[in-house]
């Protein structure tokens, strides 16, 4: 019995040795350079590159006169003064309470005036080639709203300037502060933003009790050339959870129950309404495909892909090719991205977008002939999920925050209809 057990123990050791031999090769390495065609599979991937003339079954644009994003809900307030385009940012602040707490208890005193105020504006985009960029403030009527048009404010903007700030001069000062005017600036190099703090005295922004302290101001921009800035709006601040819209810091005077006048800490007054007015007014869409501009327009395309591509191919590259119907306005700094998104479901102009599959094409301000917009991921999605709706939407980033717009010929213009240039790989033919 002992001999039997000893032999079994030896066997176990041999088994362990054998297992060790096997485990030494448990990780596979099968990749070798191919010597084709002799030592490769007779099947091969091949690509088809073709232009589908009829792939766009239906096309249309939406967004005028009511845009997907309009000036009053845009993320940017545009102040522009270039030949052929004038735009001015406008805003109205929220009211200030008529009474404020004046002591350690709940006793309040009436607001009786203002010492001064600081207007905070955040510049989110500017043309750095513009020199002597100057922001000028104008007092506006409190009645401004989303229906206010450019020429409705001709008189206020023809009036006296409340304050003006030469941004180049301010940014050149030590510490970005002007001790004379009290203006200052901070530069966020990461997010490419400039915050401008403009000090205003009580004569420039008088506290009008009858108006509950509301104030309406307009911002006009000027420069030696290419005066073009975007100012952050309240909507942008809400989106990023950061105060980026126009804000007035009131330094108020409060009656302390007949005793000394109290100077409480600054009272913030955000914009209750902000927008911009511009001239010339937006062009109607007409029979063209339009993407971008103000109000923001979108193009909705219903595609008809051949079953071979949709059901059993892999998309390598897909590009929409449009013939431009008009040239872009602006200068190179106005270049903008156009984003293609598939829709979750096709409800026409109000189709919800699938934001996970995005193709982005930068449109530069150059003379246009053929406009090519990349839709590789979108068409690739359709080729991998045949249940997806084959409708896509083209939109501008940042919608409603840039004046340039693409105007393209639609499929109704048979000679210049848009096409789909697609490169795809048919199914890999497995050897039987």
């Amino acid at each position, binding site marked *: 019995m002992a001999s039997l057990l000893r032999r079994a123990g030896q066997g176990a050791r041999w088994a362990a040795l054998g297992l060790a031999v096997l485990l030494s090769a448990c990780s596979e390495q099968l990749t*070798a350079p191919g010597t084709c065609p002799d030592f490769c*599979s007779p099947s091969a991937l091949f690509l088809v590159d073709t232009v589908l003339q009829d792939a766009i079954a239906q096309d249309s644009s939406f967004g005028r006169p009511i845009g997907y994003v309009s000036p009053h809900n845009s993320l940017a307030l545009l102040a522009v003064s270039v030949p052929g385009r004038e735009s001015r940012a406008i805003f109205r602040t929220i009211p200030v309470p008529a009474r404020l707490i004046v002591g350690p208890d709940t006793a309040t005193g009436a607001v009786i005036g203002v010492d001064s105020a600081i207007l905070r504006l955040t510049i989110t985009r500017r043309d750095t080639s513009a020199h002597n960029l100057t922001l000028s403030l104008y007092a506006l009527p409190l009645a401004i709203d989303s229906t206010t048009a450019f020429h409705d404010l001709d008189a206020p903007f023809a009036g006296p300037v409340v304050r003006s700030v030469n941004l180049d001069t301010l940014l050149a000062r030590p510490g970005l502060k002007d001790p004379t005017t009290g203006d200052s600036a901070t530069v966020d190099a990461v997010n490419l933003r400039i915050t401008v703090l403009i000090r205003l005295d009580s004569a420039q922004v008088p506290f009008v009790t009858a108006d509950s302290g509301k104030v309406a101001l307009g911002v006009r921009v000027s420069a030696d050339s290419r005066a073009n800035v975007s100012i952050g709006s309240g909507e942008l601040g809400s989106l990023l959870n950061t105060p980026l819209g126009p804000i007035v810091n009131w330094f108020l005077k409060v009656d302390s129950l007949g005793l000394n006048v109290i100077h409480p800490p600054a009272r913030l007054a955000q914009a209750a309404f902000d927008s911009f007015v511009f001239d010339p007014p937006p062009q109607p869409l007409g029979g063209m495909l339009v993407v971008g501009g103000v109000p923001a327009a979108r193009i909705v395309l219903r595609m008809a892909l051949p079953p071979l591509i949709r059901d059993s191919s892999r998309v390598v590259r897909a590009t929409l090719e449009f013939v431009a119907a008009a040239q872009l306005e602006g200068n190179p700094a106005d270049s903008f991205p156009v984003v293609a998104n598939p829709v979750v479901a096709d409800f026409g102009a109000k189709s919800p977008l699938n934001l996970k599959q995005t193709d982005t094409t930068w449109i530069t301000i150059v003379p246009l002939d053929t406009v090519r917009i990349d839709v590789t991921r979108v068409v690739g999605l359709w080729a991998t999920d045949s249940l997806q709706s084959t409708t896509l939407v083209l939109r501008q980033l940042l919608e409603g925050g840039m004046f340039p717009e693409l105007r393209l010929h639609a499929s109704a213009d048979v000679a210049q209809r848009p096409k789909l240039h697609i490169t795809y790989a048919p*199914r890999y033919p497995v050897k039987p």
Partner: protein
Amino acid sequence: MRSMRRLALVAGTLIAGTRPVLAQDSQFGIRGLGTPGRWESVRARTTGGAFAAFDATSALADAALADVRALTAAAMGASSYRSVKAPGGSANLRNGRFPLFTVAGAVSRRLTIGGGFTTYLDDSYEVVTRDSVLLRGVMVPFRDNFASDGGISDIRIAAASRLGTALALGLGLHVITGSARVTAMRTFDDSTVYATVRDSQLVRKTGFGVSASALITPSPILSIVGFARADGQFHTNVDDLASGESDLPNMVGGAVRLTLSPFARMAGSVAWRSWSNTAPGAYNTINWSAGLEVGGLGSGLRVGGRGGKLPFGPGGSAPSEWGVAAGFGRTFGGGHGVLDLGAERLVRDGGGLHEAVWTLMFGLTIRQ
């Protein structure tokens, strides 16, 4: 007995942990149906395959089951280290496989049945190529990966009967089935503009075959086996859609064994297979082997060599293959268990490609 249970557990682990049973791969199999498997246990393979037709734990000749009396199970593992040299480059490859499991036992005094599975074709590889293509007026460089991971197993049920001291007959039925995940991927150097193409399909193949063999022992010294096998057709499904059929080869062969003494045996075998009708550019093959075993049946030293042709390759002639092998066995558990260890060196040449393979083998046989 506890050690026996432990070894049984090891055997079970080996078998349960197997991937689809695969033998060693070869670049020569990529263009064809795959690389043919060897239906040989470690004992037979370390003699170059010469003893496979007489070995009940191999799956070559069913008649060899006739002399199995006790319930016997055998499993095998192999690790291959392969160097490939071709005009397009060279590579060192490795893999680990469990290419064989057999079980057999007597159901009556004259009848033994057996079965198991072994590799019929191996179809695992990955090749990488670089090229460029003209797209929209621009030459675009890319890299292609073509890979297959899988293989075809031969599941066998066989019966053998000894009709007298000089004659035993065997018959087997075979289900030839398996699958491979075939993947093709093209990655462009500029992947920001051109999307990667990735196509993956599951290829399933199924066929049936029959085998028959006769073991003649005219004298205690001499044994002769004749064996034949006819396999039908592969029915191929790609992603569960029928995609075609292809013929499978037939085989005939024979082997001779000389028992020189109770402690020395030598054998030789030859087999012909009709691969030429299975795929374009395939060749019929003749393979031979010769081997020597010295020592007891379970614990001898073994050496052998083999040579012949491979069925798939470029050009006007079949690639050639030759190899040598050696190994030994050791019994344990009072003769109820046999451990076999071996090593094999194979060299393949054809169409400018040179392939050299070292294979380490481990076999475990347990008898009731």
